[in-house]
């Protein structure tokens, strides 16, 4: 059997606020196969973002181990982590996904630019992915000229354009109405099936949970349930 793409063991993360110490993650064991389309559900404050940030190498656990594609990602330097994110992870956030002064096309191409891809090539690639997320022809628009749903699609295009091993999405539908939320989820699901890109989506939005192929539930920093829904 294939090795799991992500393998987290005994992950713990504490936050100190005043005299009280809260455990945002309280011993999470978590693994994810390549090609998964998993929604991480749970109430607000249950630790979803914390776990996602850990897997996205934006944050480090206080205890536990974490391997991505077999690599011990807790052992690498800050610089290597940034490089790992750049080359192997796609991000979709709840809001503020785009750089304001760049056009949609340039936003999609930004990661390729950091990776050193030639201008013509990366802009062509950006146009291709904008078309894939049904935004063909809107490449010249600035983020403030796009609706919330369109902005999230640009973020999806950016994440996919870099062909990462995994796309992490944190509450991607939170700022959308249910119609736009549904179509965004449908889009990601479609791309997951077609491109076989792995998605891990943190959301407490029922619309997002409905689209999941696998649903993982969290509560108070631990995983309480895991169901395949296909």
């Amino acid at each position, binding site marked *: 059997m294939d090795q799991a793409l992500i393998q987290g063991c005994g992950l713990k993360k504490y936050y100190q606020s005043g005299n009280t110490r809260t455990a945002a993650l309280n011993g999470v064991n978590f693994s994810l196969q390549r090609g998964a389309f998993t929604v991480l559900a749970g109430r607000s404050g249950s630790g979803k973002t914390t776990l996602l*940030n850990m897997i*996205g190498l*934006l*944050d480090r656990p206080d205890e536990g181990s974490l391997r991505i594609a077999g690599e011990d990602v807790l052992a690498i330097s*800050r*610089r290597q982590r*940034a*490089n*790992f*994110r*750049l*080359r192997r*992870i796609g*991000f979709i*956030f709840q*809001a*503020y*996904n*785009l*750089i*304001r*002064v*760049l056009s949609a096309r340039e936003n999609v191409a*930004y*990661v390729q*630019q*950091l990776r*050193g891809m030639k201008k013509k090539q990366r802009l062509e690639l950006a146009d291709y992915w904008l078309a894939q997320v049904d935004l063909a022809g809107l490449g010249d628009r600035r983020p403030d000229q796009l609706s919330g749903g369109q902005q999230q699609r640009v973020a999806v295009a950016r994440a996919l354009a870099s062909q990462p091993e995994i796309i992490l999405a944190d509450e991607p539908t939170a700022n959308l109405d249910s119609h736009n939320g549904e179509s965004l989820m449908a889009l990601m699901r479609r791309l997951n099936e077609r491109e076989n890109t792995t998605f891990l989506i943190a959301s407490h939005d029922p619309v997002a949970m409905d689209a999941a192929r696998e649903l993982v539930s969290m509560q108070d920093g631990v995983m309480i349930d895991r169901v395949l829904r296909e």
Partner: protein
Amino acid sequence: MNTVIYLRLGVGNLWLHPTRTGLTLLALVIGIGALGFLSAMMNGMMTNMKSNFVLNEMGHLQIHAKGFEQQRKIELHLNNTETIDAMLAQTPAVRAWSHRLRVSGMASAAGSSATALISGIEAEQESRVSRLREFLVQGAWLRPTQLRDAVLGKVLAERLRLDIGDKLVLMAVAPDGDVMSEVFRLRGTIASGAMEMDNTTVLINLKAAQAWMNLGAGVTDVVIRCRSFADVNPLAQQLRQQLDGHDVEVLRWMDIDPMAEQWTRFNDAYSWVIMAVVMIVILAEVLNTMLMSMHDRLHELGLMAALGTSQGAMFAMVIWETLVLVTLGGVLGFALGYAFTAWYAVHGIDLSRYAEAFSFMYIEPVVYPAMEWQQTLHMMGAALSGACLAGMYPAWQASRLDPVQAMRE
């Protein structure tokens, strides 16, 4: 490698807040423009002062018998100047030279008398070396063949209550120790604005002076005018070598009177202080603008860091933005300063209200500002390195940004 995008982001982010950016730019433009203009004005004044200082009377270089400058005794004179004249005739850096015989003595007329610095000069040749003749305010210049002609400083002539054509008696001690007196007629008066000169100067023909003092072809000074200030040092060095062993001293203008040189130095130092103060104010403004801009974009900076933008790139991005701002302000500021300079270079800045104070320092009351390339480059360099410095702190903050914290609402 990714300079283009950071430049683009820098410009774009500045454009996001046109008012804020505009105000900062305005401060930069006015500050740098004023700085450029003021330094051009200072340059104009200093150049004016230096050349007045030298051209009024002194010349760029003087050759004396050794020790004359210190002792000012007529015994220390050059018996003849043939060797020196031949040498100067072959030196391209020399524009013109003339001979003088200087002696201090007394001038008297109708019961009043005053100390006088008497100079025998070559009436025609002197005009090629100094501006003495241009200072003529009354009467006429010395006639080379009229050995009784005398031209006096205006104040001195007034003190002796002399009118044009009046007789005066000059008295001085000749090298052999005899007190010699001779009668002259006032031919004209000069006013340079320099007090000492107008109070004491008496000009007569060199031949008259030589005959009066029994000196034959002897002179005390060979006064040299160079083609430019840049020639002064090399020429002095060359002449010192060539005249080694001749028992003469070759003095540069700043050796003769260090005042003007000191003034120039002082002015340079003063300009640096003003520049530093203006730069600090400007850069505080830039720093403030950058910190505000960063604060506004915290989420976005967090996003960029999360996507994998390296720390170095985050740092560079902020520095570039600062540089764009300061370069724009600098270029516009210098353009403004240059425009003012160009206008006043033609029309002059009339400071005649303060002329009394200035004439003492050999500065004419109308100043023509002049921008110096090198100085402009220095200031631009200072502004840009200052910009880097001011950008350093926000850039350092950006590079250390924790994306998780930055993106948290």
